[in-house]
């Protein structure tokens, strides 16, 4: 059996005192794919990355990165990976250029080759102009780009991105996303942790939902969305009285309940009623007919795929990500 996984872990556990950060984490990231690791704060995302990048040793379980065991052969793992941390791990007292040259040398790209590679990455991440300024003076986005550049000096086989766009402005975020897509297209395996479902939706081939130190769900973004079905939403016309509006909402909720078998969610302020629909036979005309037959004054009906946010809330029964 040959392994085609760039990252493969089985039963990873890690405890910090009373806190069980990982409780048997299984991960399998196929070579050349982008895997998005999602989860609420404290789910174990960062600990998972720290174990896989050899920063922390697990209490039990095994993990292979690029085919090397993180505990038995950390040196080989380190030669195969690039890491971009949650906090920009560059030296604020050095310039952007000095940072990249330092890391290039330590990664074995020495002399002229290291200088050339540093300049190339500065150019690519639009940092050439700021290259000789002390990086402490950079904006958050520039720092993150410099950090990503530092992770790419060796053209790593596996790149770890721990919340790469947390707190970034849209322009910097788009730049990081473009870089990740480019890397993936060139065959680099990327493991990305994020709190942003949109980010995972846009970048990831596969998503792993971590909850309480375990992989709770996994699949492509489309599969995960399909797992909870579609979302039916009805918008009602404005009624003359409060009581009439309430009556219409209740009537619409009754119809949706009957059609989907799921508990409808009422929003009185914007006069909408929604429900998760798992039955693939449920169609838009059928919903409209039933509402009409019940005499509900409808102005809009939609049946759409759920957002990853809705998937996340439903699958983990949580009150959402740290937003």
């Amino acid at each position, binding site marked *: 059996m040959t392994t085609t996984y760039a990252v493969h872990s089985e039963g990873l556990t890690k405890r910090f005192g009373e806190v069980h950060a990982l409780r048997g984490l299984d991960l399998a990231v196929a070579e050349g794919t982008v895997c998005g690791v999602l989860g609420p704060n404290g789910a174990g995302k960062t600990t998972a990355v720290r174990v896989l*990048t*050899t920063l922390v040793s697990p209490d039990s379980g095994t993990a292979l990165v690029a085919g090397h065991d993180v505990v038995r052969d950390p040196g080989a793992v*380190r030669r195969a990976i690039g890491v971009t941390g949650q906090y920009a791990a560059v030296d604020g007292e050095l310039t952007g250029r000095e940072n990249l040259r330092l890391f290039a040398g330590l*990664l074995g790209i020495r002399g002229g080759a290291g200088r050339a590679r540093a300049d190339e990455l500065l150019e690519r991440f639009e940092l050439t102009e700021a290259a000789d300024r002390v990086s402490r003076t950079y904006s958050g986005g520039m720092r993150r780009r410099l950090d990503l550049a530092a992770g790419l000096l060796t053209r790593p086989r596996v790149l770890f991105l721990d919340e790469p766009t947390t707190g970034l402005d849209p322009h910097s975020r788009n730049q990081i996303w473009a870089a990740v897509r480019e890397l993936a297209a060139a065959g680099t395996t990327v493991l990305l942790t994020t709190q942003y479902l949109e980010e995972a939706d846009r970048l990831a081939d596969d998503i792993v939902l971590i909850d309480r130190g375990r992989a709770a769900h996994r699949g492509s973004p489309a599969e995960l969305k399909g797992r909870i079905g579609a979302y039916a939403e009805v918008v009602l016309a404005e009624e003359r009285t409060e009581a009439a509006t309430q009556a219409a909402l209740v009537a619409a909720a009754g119809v949706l309940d009957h059609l989907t078998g799921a508990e409808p969610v009422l929003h009185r302020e914007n006069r909408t009623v929604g429900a998760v629909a798992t039955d693939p036979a449920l169609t838009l005309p059928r919903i409209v007919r039933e509402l009409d037959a019940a005499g509900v004054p409808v102005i809009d009906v939609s049946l759409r795929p759920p957002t990853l946010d809705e998937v996340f809330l439903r699958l983990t029964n949580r009150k959402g990500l740290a937003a």
Partner: protein
Amino acid sequence: MSTVAYDSGAVLGRHLRRIRHAPGVVLLTQTMPITMLLFFGYVFGSALAMPGTEYRAYLVPGLLASTAAGGIMTGMFQASHDAQRGIMDRFRTMPMSRAAVPLGQTLADLITTAVGLIPLLLVGLAVGWRIEGGALDALGAIGLLMIFRFAANWVGTYLGLLVANEEAAGQLGAATFILPLLSNAYIPTEGMTGWLRTVAEWNPISAVSMGVRALFGNAAPAADAAWPVAHPVAGSVLWSLLLLVLFVPLAVRRYATGAK
């Protein structure tokens, strides 16, 4: 082996470059001992039995030794700073020598210390301290200070990695101010009560202060002093080696394992 040499050299270069971007810091670290030299030398000196010039000549080697001991504080601050900012984690994820980060840091500190001692020596000369021995002995005195600084810096690096928190390191570092006070650096130990004198004379700073005094020809140890002070040059070297043997492996191991 070449990895250790290259990687340590790169980390050393990193620290020297940091200083080049903020050169004032090295000189600023010297304002404290110079202020103390002037303050102790003239204010306390006037109350001591020793004549003022003689006391200041006694004090300069003591301040040099306590500056060397200050390596604990700088090592602690630097290591905790790097540990907290995440740059140490980046180094840990790289295929580099596990000894390079602490070794490069302590070697860079040695260079900045050598430069930083010059202003103190000059002010010392201005207030009446002189090199009264031979040139070789004087070089030996600088050597003693350097090896002790190196050892103290490794102690600090280990402690900094251990606390991994800048604020805590700052608090702990400030507390090291008391170490030279419990030695013969500023005040001769002969007048101290029995147990206090024993504690002060077994303080490594006492051996180094007296070793530097002996090599510069400023003063000789009392015959009834504790062994490291009575044989101050050998005592200083042995203290430094002992600290290095203990703290180099501790610091390297602590760096390699990281936060558990």
